[in-house]
């Protein structure tokens, strides 16, 4: 078991290295900051020399990458070229909000999509099933930003109707717990609704497959109640694919958080990523991408560990 876990962690680390090299090279082959500085008449040669030395801009990409990795190993994530602040400080003040919003969305999605998926499978081809199918397909076809806009518009309509701003349209809040809940409600709902749509369809499909299997027929023949069959026999067997999709959707959620954070004015990592890419703040952008990759790898490693727990056969196969 120990070797198996180490193997999974090793795979994850390799993925992070590959992702970071790719991102570094992509940013490196983009507009060269040193060339841009040299072309800018507002910089004197002394300014260019100082900035070049400070950020090692005249070194080849692999040396710059190695220097960045050495810095990471020392806990030094580099300084932002734009704000001159340590990248680590900039990211760490943003990371908790992103984790909170995406984590809440993930939990809520799971809590709602699981029973919904079961209900859809059990009541397949009913009016309820068809109605939810229309709604979920519509949601899956809706761009995330449009859903966010509609939620904001709903908040605006409610404000005009009542004269009270029940749900603020943007910002993180911060004047107490309730204020934070009010401010985070719309972004969390926006991310959650998108996830529920996809996950509930997926669960429905998995449940239908399991409910049609031999052992369920046997259980039914033994006279077990439908509820017992669904919850004790069918549901655990849908766990493996569900774990997979939840782990994979960490990346989707993280990517979706960029748009959500921008639209809802949340100072999270997504909005920082957008700002740093726009401002060619290479180190900050790189650090954020690596953290995103790290989160994805951690989620997938946890998922693989859970496979082993849920179904010990996967351990022996691997």
């Amino acid at each position, binding site marked *: 078991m120990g070797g198996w876990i180490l193997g999974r962690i090793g795979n994850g680390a390799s993925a992070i290295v590959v992702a970071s090299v790719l991102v570094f090279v992509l940013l490196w082959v983009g*507009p060269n900051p040193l060339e*841009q500085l040299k*072309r800018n*008449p*507002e*910089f*004197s040669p*002394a*300014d260019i020399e*100082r*900035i070049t030395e400070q950020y090692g801009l005249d070194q080849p990409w692999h040396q710059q990458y190695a220097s960045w990795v050495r810095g990471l190993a020392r806990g030094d994530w580099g300084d932002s*070229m*734009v*704000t*001159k*602040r340590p990248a680590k400080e*900039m990211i760490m*003040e*943003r990371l908790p909000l992103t984790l909170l919003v995406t984590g809440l969305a993930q939990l809520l999605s799971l809590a709602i999509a699981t029973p919904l998926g079961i209900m859809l499978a059990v009541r397949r081809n009913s009016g309820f099933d068809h109605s939810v199918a229309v709604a979920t397909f519509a949601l899956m076809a809706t*761009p995330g*930003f*449009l859903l966010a*806009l509609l939620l*904001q*518009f709903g*908040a*605006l*309509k409610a*404000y*005009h109707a009542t*004269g009270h*701003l029940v749900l*603020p*349209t*943007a*910002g*993180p809040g*911060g004047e107490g717990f309730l204020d934070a809940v009010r401010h985070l409600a719309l972004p969390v709902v926006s991310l959650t609704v998108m996830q529920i749509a996809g996950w509930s369809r997926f669960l429905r499909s998995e449940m239908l497959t399991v409910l049609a299997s031999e052992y369920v027929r046997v259980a039914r023949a033994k006279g077990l109640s439908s509820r017992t069959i669904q919850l004790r026999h069918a549901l655990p067997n849908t766990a493996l694919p569900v774990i997979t999709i939840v782990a994979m959707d960490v990346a989707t959620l993280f990517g979706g958080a960029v*748009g959500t954070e*921008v*639209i*809802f*004015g*949340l*100072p*999270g990592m997504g*909005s*920082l990523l*957008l*700002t740093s*890419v*726009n*401002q*060619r*703040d290479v180190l900050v952008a790189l650090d954020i991408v690596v953290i995103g990759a790290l989160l994805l790898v951690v989620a997938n490693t946890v998922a693989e560990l859970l496979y082993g727990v849920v179904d010990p056969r996967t351990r022996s196969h691997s």
Partner: protein
Amino acid sequence: VANRGNALKGITATVGRTACALAYAVACALLAAGCGSVQAPATDTAEGAAPVRGGEVRVGIVQEPATMNPYILASGVVDATVFDPMSDALVEWGPDSQPIPVIATKVPTLANGLVRRRGKGMDVTVPINPKAAWNDGHPLTCADVRFTWQTIMDERWVVLSRAGWDVITGVDCPDPHTAVLHFRTVYSDYLNVLVAILVPEHDQRGKDFNSSWVEDVPVSNGPFEFDRWEHGTYIRLRRNEKYWRSDQGLPRLEGVEFRFLQDPNTLNLQLSTGEIDMISRPLNATVDRERATFPRSTYVVTPTMIVQLFTFNHSHAPMNDPRIRQAVAYSIDREQLIDVILGKPFRLLHSTLVPQLGDYFVAPFDRYRPDPDKADGLLREAGYQRAASGYYERRGEPLTLQYKGLADKGTSLQIAQLLQHQMKQAGIRMQITLETPQVFFGQTLRSSAYDIIFWDQGVRNPVQRSFFHCEPSPGRGNAGRYCNKRVSAMIDQAENALDPRVRIRLVREMQQIIADELPVLPLYQRLLTAIYAPGLRNVSPNPNSTVTWDVANWSWVDGTRDAERGAG
């Protein structure tokens, strides 16, 4: 700073542009529909009631400043809108483009004897108000003016621009309340040095200015002082309790908060719900369409000192031929471009200057109206014949122009497409490329890889050395590579002329030559909107400055934010 700020705003838009544009369009439509039932007449100006102290104002802005230091260049710039409430300058440009003394007790001019020629140079004497002080109570004196010059000229600091300061050879302080600036040459644009943000000597001497004012500004001299910066969310300024003009009841507000919202649609929504009190941004759509989005807000449109124009490339064929430039000018229906794409209140501009510059302003480009016969004559004279393809050709090659513009302008593509259509009608093929600011400024302008560009020029200084002199000043200089020795000599003369009458005469004469030779063809003056809560008083947008330039005078009608007293 303003130009780089605009460029950076453009950069900010690059990644999320498509989504934001669509989002904005959808939200405008939704808002216009949704607010229909609660419409109230919008007003153009806030009139009236006696100023009451109290309340804060929340201003929504799209781009968060990278640092608070307006002088030091990183890759971004502090938004001057954020810094202005913390800073009083010696002199400010007023809304009527006239200088207003702020910390100076008088605006130095030749007429009042405070500007004097001295050999080849000149001296500018600035009388400093003895009451002027920093927010820590330390008096603001000539030493601060001298230290500001020393700081800006210090080679150790990565200062954005030293323009104007590098003509100064020294600053003398005969007494603490008199600063004498010695200029190496006669420098007629000296007032633009006096509008600079002052650096407090007692706070900054001995410090690394590259690292100062990055996270906060502990010592400042404006009506508000730095309070808190919550990164990604807001910067809050509070009332400067030791403000040196507090005996005039200033400032009237308790504080100003700048909220950062990257999505323009969210800014709109927050203004509609009273979560923020003000937005200020360039006007791209027609006023009527935007006004409908904010039926309950005060909506003010202000001209800016920025001209949107076409620049023709003089460095290579075909646009180095004046006949081709004129033929192009006679083929463009500029009136149609304005009417169809921008609508009211945009107006066709017949000058590279703006009416706010008073006597400097002339409109010599009004001669260029669509005239197919003139264009045909000029092209034939240049050796082109109209071919069966409908295009003019010379030696079998159609007359083809490379048109480049910025992809971040809301109407940039529409203008390019309509222009392309007009050119086609006139028999001239035009190929359009819209580029990101990095490519446009970093490559296209520097390598001169275009025939026509559509962009903007700041015209605060009517002499316009940067755009029409054979040896322009550093920066976005003379992109069209236009060079006329006579014009350059007139620019040199105008810059050395302290008598405004002489400058006005030279500038007006220059405008006529420029209209003849067509290095540029102006289209319109850019407009800025300020949209704010109806209870906010004494906001006076200024074409020469940011919307917060006179924030000390702002007040709420009864000392409370509209949103807090349920009037939003």
